[in-house]
């Protein structure tokens, strides 16, 4: 294995580990913050829905 490939593989490993760490940290957020994010995700999902395939009952939570 050349040095270039070793360097590349190490770089990719760091990128993946960094992504995992991001997801693990997001999993540790307080549930109240997760629900706030969830409502934003609902808005995005409804905004980009495909009219032909989207479920009719997608209801963005109406919470404070």
């Amino acid at each position, binding site marked *: 294995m050349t040095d270039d490939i070793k360097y590349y593989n190490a770089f990719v490993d760091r990128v993946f580990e960094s992504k995992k760490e991001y997801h693990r940290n997001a999993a540790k957020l307080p549930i109240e913050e997760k629900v706030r994010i969830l409502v934003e995700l609902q808005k995005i999902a409804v905004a980009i829905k495909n009219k032909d395939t989207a479920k009719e009952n997608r209801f963005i939570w109406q*919470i404070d």
Partner: protein
Amino acid sequence: MDKTLVVINSMLQEGLFRKYAIGGGIGALFYIEPMATFDLDIFILPVEDPAGLISLSSLYDWTAKRGYAHAQEQIIIEGIPVQFIPAYNDLVTEAVLQSVEKKYKEVTTYVVRPEYLMAIMLQTSRPKDLNRLEAFLEEAELSTPLLNTILDKYGLKNSFDNLGKGRYDG
């Protein structure tokens, strides 16, 4: 969501069901990073009538009297579509019985343990369940002995061990 949980706790106190636990995507939300989901799934241990039959009509009547709209099989409680799901097999029943108490803001609620959520997802095995299952493996704090016990008990060990095969092994 706190207002919704207060209403559900009132239903529990008034005996509309024997016990409840949050499952599904919102149950998962307690343990993994947020993913889009729209329903608040509430697994319940229903009250049986003297003939041993299970009916959810009292639950629907109770919410209708309080002005909560019904949309198909969901009930919109304080701005959130809630799906009440009677425990439909032994695994889900045990998941409700073994649920853990948690707080949302100041409100006490009950949530299915992550190990049981994983087993239920494995049993259901829809694509979104399998995606969430992978997130649990990466992100959730789990008891491996408990997970193994549940998987063995409900015959899910092989499915678990084969998770991801075919998608990653080419």
